[in-house]
């Protein structure tokens, strides 16, 4: 049981005693308590298997796709238990970007950006659609690169561009929170840098939760950092403080490369 080690002025998400198990008796996430700051980048880091992706996916209830996963405890969004919302509404407010870029291959770029609306059966006027596409793609600095090929399928884009397209798809829906699960681990350094710059820009409008296995990335762009180890939240604090003065020896071990 860990307590929040951070005083957040404007919280948006609260995690209460969250435990997640894949099998009976094996907990992937153990008793997490934390408050997430609004419009900031919070990095979740730790060695492989520490439960960081599992924790991330709890925020938009992705685990419910897999019947053998059980969740205890609660997560509150704007002080409302996310399990009391319908998944449809929850996922409008909390968007997700995955590790490997996954634009829908049967849709073109334009349709990909609007995929959230299409999947939810929301009909928009042509002018609204154009507006959303242009704004989302501009926000991810992809507009100039693709504005002349909007109606081509996204498969010709580079990995980095595809990932930015996926981010555009997520923010086209105007969520409150963006969850990113190791979004740059499949990208080259140049593309990674572009995505990192993008996230720093995006935090002005969105709350960003970023799982990363790359601690320098966490150090570069995050405001707050969580360190997880074997399913527990070992330490949680402001990034610059945690990196220079970790309180827990396990955190220090990870940050200095003794393991992980």
């Amino acid at each position, binding site marked *: 049981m860990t307590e929040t080690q951070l005083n957040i002025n404007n919280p948006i998400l609260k995690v209460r005693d969250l435990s997640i198990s894949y099998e009976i008796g094996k907990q992937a996430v153990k008793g997490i308590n934390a408050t997430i700051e609004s419009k900031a980048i919070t990095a979740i880091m730790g060695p492989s298997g520490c439960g960081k992706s599992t924790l991330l996916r709890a925020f938009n209830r*992705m685990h419910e796709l897999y019947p053998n996963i059980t969740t205890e405890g609660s997560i509150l969004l704007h002080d409302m238990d996310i399990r009391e919302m319908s998944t449809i509404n929850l996922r409008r407010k909390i968007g997700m970007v995955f590790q*490997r870029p*996954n634009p829908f*291959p049967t849709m073109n770029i334009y349709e990909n950006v609007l995929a959230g609306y299409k*999947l939810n059966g929301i009909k928009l006027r042509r002018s609204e659609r154009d507006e959303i596409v242009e704004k989302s793609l501009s926000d991810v600095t992809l507009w100039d690169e693709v504005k002349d090929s909007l109606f081509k399928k996204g498969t010709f884009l580079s990995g980095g561009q595809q990932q930015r397209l996926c981010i555009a798809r997520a923010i086209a829906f105007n969520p409150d929170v963006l969850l990113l699960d190791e979004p740059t681990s499949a990208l080259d350094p140049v593309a990674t840098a572009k995505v990192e710059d993008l996230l720093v820009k995006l935090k002005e409008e969105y709350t960003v939760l970023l799982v990363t296995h790359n601690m320098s990335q966490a150090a570069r762009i995050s405001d707050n950092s969580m360190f997880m180890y074997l399913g527990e939240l070992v330490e949680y604090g402001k990034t610059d403080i945690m990196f220079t003065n970790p309180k827990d020896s396990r955190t220090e071990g990870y940050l200095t490369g003794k393991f992980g």
Partner: protein
Amino acid sequence: MNSDRLTRTVLFISSLVLLMISAGIVFSLVGGAIPAFKAFGPGFIISNHWNPTSGHESYGALPFIAGTLITSFLALLICLPLAFSTSLFMAEYYRGTRVAGILSSMVDLLAGIPSIVYGLWGFYSLRPLIISLGLNEQGFGVFTSSLILAIMIVPYATSLSTEIIAMVPDELKEAAYSLGATRREVIFNVILPNARSGIIASYILALGRALGETMAVTMLIGNANVIPKGLFSTGNTMASIIANQFGEATGLKLSSLIAIGLLLFAITAIVNSIGKLIISRFSR
């Protein structure tokens, strides 16, 4: 080294055997059909006479072509919702569970039942049902045959499409879920568009199977050498007329039956080739 050359030659010759068999089939069918086409011209295909009285012999393939096409397409139509649901059941809703395994085994059993057994069941179980529903006095006809055919081709339609649906990457589905889609929306907007070619190909192959089916249809279609007028009227198919009348046929009648066999061969070959073409384009 010499023995190696010999071995390779023997293997190569075996492949020639396949070519010779296939060419032989085509040549024999064409050769056997020529007397009929000579006597009746290409109009044979659209003629609906079937008159074996000697001296006034006249044969035509139209009723049988119509019967084959109608029963097969109708069977495909009936089979579609069943096969589609079963594929989704096994590849999406209950993928990997024991229930899906059981369902899969049972569908495989459907494929193992010989055609004549289907015909018997259709005759003794389905026919009375149709009669009691008042759809046809004798219980024979296009609908009954198509129904049995539909059941017979379900395994063929399901097996390939189940594989294809299961192959749609999880990450695409997760992306759609993360955008708030319901399962139904994920199926129609993500899974199906990605699996479309494979699914269509499997239905085309099932159609090819239905076209050539003989025994079950023969026992249920009523064997009337006319173009079927309605859903519950009787008729005949290319395969059935050959099965029924080949045994004692001679001369022009025999040649006409062979010509029908040639047409059946051509139709199934074309349909199956189209199906394969779609599969190969899809997996590029």
